[in-house]
């Protein structure tokens, strides 16, 4: 077969072959050009083009000075990095746990034949469309020590011993923020869990009920195993959100009190835009970007594995 075709091909005159081979259609190139151009100039170029900045000492005004790897070695002496990293880990772990638990719980409640399901679902999702600035400022008032809603509720209920300076006390400022972040996002995770729950065939539960399995056994042996891919999606989304946290800590406390809510993105921002240490902030943002990228790759793998299963 192969020899026959090659033999045939040799006999085809060049003049017939050339046009079909060489004529490249320009149209598809023009179609992808705007997207690729935008993406290249405003994403890829700053992504790599900024690397030289990491080796400079530069305040944005004076001419920059080359300092070698100083900006990178300095990170090991920066006492705020372990602090911000620790806070960030607490922030990410705390929000992942709270968002996942609360959204799974509410999704299970809404997966029943309840009247008003649609209303509950729509309402719990509402804060997702709101700006973090609005959410953060609103909760700054709710948590206000003197006149905030939380403390006046405690007072009205006679629970005065629970009255706290929710954002002013360095021991509880971070947990308070986790509540705000969870309040904003758990409706989002709930909708994803609900979509996952709806793919589980009802017959499985009916069969389990026939066998006399309790609600808990049904949850542990049917729901949870079948929900694992969706659970992973939710966890990775919340994890990335937690490590990218900036808006809420910046707006509510600017990282305070006593740096108790300082997270990495905020630390980089403050070094860069408040102290004008652009070189150092660039070096930090590259290290941090590599970390976030690794997390994203894990997320991407989780998501694509999820597609394969469906």
């Amino acid at each position: 077969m192969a020899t026959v075709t090659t033999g045939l091909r040799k006999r085809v005159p060049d003049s017939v072959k050339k046009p079909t081979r060489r004529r490249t259609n320009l149209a598809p190139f023009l179609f992808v050009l705007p997207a690729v151009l935008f993406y290249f100039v405003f994403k890829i170029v700053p992504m790599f083009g900024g690397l030289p900045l990491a080796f400079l000492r530069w305040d944005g005004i004076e001419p920059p000075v080359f300092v070698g790897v100083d900006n990178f070695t300095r990170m090991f002496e920066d006492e705020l990095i372990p602090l911000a990293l620790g806070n960030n880990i607490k922030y990410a772990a705390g929000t992942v746990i709270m968002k996942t638990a609360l959204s799974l719980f509410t999704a299970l409640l809404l997966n029943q034949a309840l009247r008003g399901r649609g209303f509950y679902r729509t309402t719990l999702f509402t804060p997702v469309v709101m700006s973090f600035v609005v959410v953060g400022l609103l909760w700054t008032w709710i948590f206000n020590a003197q006149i905030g809603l939380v403390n006046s509720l405690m007072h009205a209920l006679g629970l005065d011993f629970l009255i706290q300076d929710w954002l002013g006390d360095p021991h509880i400022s971070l947990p308070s923020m986790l509540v705000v972040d969870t309040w904003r996002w758990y409706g989002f995770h709930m909708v994803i869990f609900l979509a996952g729950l709806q793919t589980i065939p009802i017959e499985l539960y009916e069969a389990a009920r026939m066998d006399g399995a309790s609600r808990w056994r049904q949850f542990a042996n049917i729901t949870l195993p079948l929900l694992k891919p969706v659970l992973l999606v939710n966890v990775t989304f919340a994890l990335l959100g937690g490590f990218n946290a900036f808006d809420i800590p910046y707006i509510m406390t600017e990282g305070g009190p006593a740096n108790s809510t300082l997270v990495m993105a905020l630390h980089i921002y403050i070094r860069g835009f408040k102290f004008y240490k652009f070189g150092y902030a660039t070096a930090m943002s590259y290290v941090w970007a590599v970390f976030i990228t690794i997390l994203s790759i894990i997320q991407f793998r989780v998501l694509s594995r999820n597609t394969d299963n469906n």
Partner: protein
Amino acid sequence: MSNTTTSSIASQQASRIGRAFGSSIRTEQMLVRIASHAILIVLTLLILYPLVWMVFESFKTGGEFSTNVWGPPQSLQWVNYVDAWNTGKLGYALVNSTIVSLSVVVLVIVCAGLAAYAITKMRFRYGPAVFFFLIFTMSAPVPIIPLYAMLVALHLTDTYGALILPAVAGGIPFSVFMFRAYFLSLPSELIESAKVDGCTDLSAFLRIVVPISGPAIATVAILQFIGTWNEYFLPLIMIRTPEMRTIPLAIQAFFYQWGRTEWQQVFAALSIGTIPMVVLYYLMQRQFIQGLTAGAIKA
């Protein structure tokens, strides 16, 4: 068909078993239902009350703040809105946010739509390469200072361009991903036959593909619109003049200036910034929820 029969048989059997066990199962189901409603009502109130309270506070007088913490305002102080609107330059902010968000939506849809069409429906050797390049690099974040330095070097400080261009670049990969998935579901014969009738690729795209791509366009549009409307960081580092602020930035600036004294105006500003989007959400909740969760559910 067979599914419905088996499940109806199953439910018949279940109800027979229920009757056999007496009312205990029914009572349990009733209790679960009541408890579920009770919990969901509390959670709903925890979401809704802060929003309602925000609107309450925005209409109160300065004196009411400490005396009437929880309830509705005794009278509607519209003047709070007027003051917030004027001193906070919120009119500018609404216009800026609208221009920036709509520009991002349009540019992302055009760029990503064309690219996804080339990748899926045209004979294009480099289609897969372009697609995987976008997908593999999309989750790597752009380090903020290099982006800032570049936008400053391009003299984009204090311009719409500084807010629009990076947002378009950021939105393209995921939108290409969404459009590609949608276009793959469209039969190629549709486009082939249009081309036989003399359509060029562009006219086939505009006349055949675009009109039937409503769902995909809506998903991309909602995600990009809300993301850009609520974006805080980019305006924070790129915008200096008050007249160029977007809504989140204007509200935050207003709070820093007046938050200690004119709290009722701050609540008016918060309400102005929130109500349009929340109303839009309740009008089109199905599309909003679908659009915002598309990345997690469909990806």
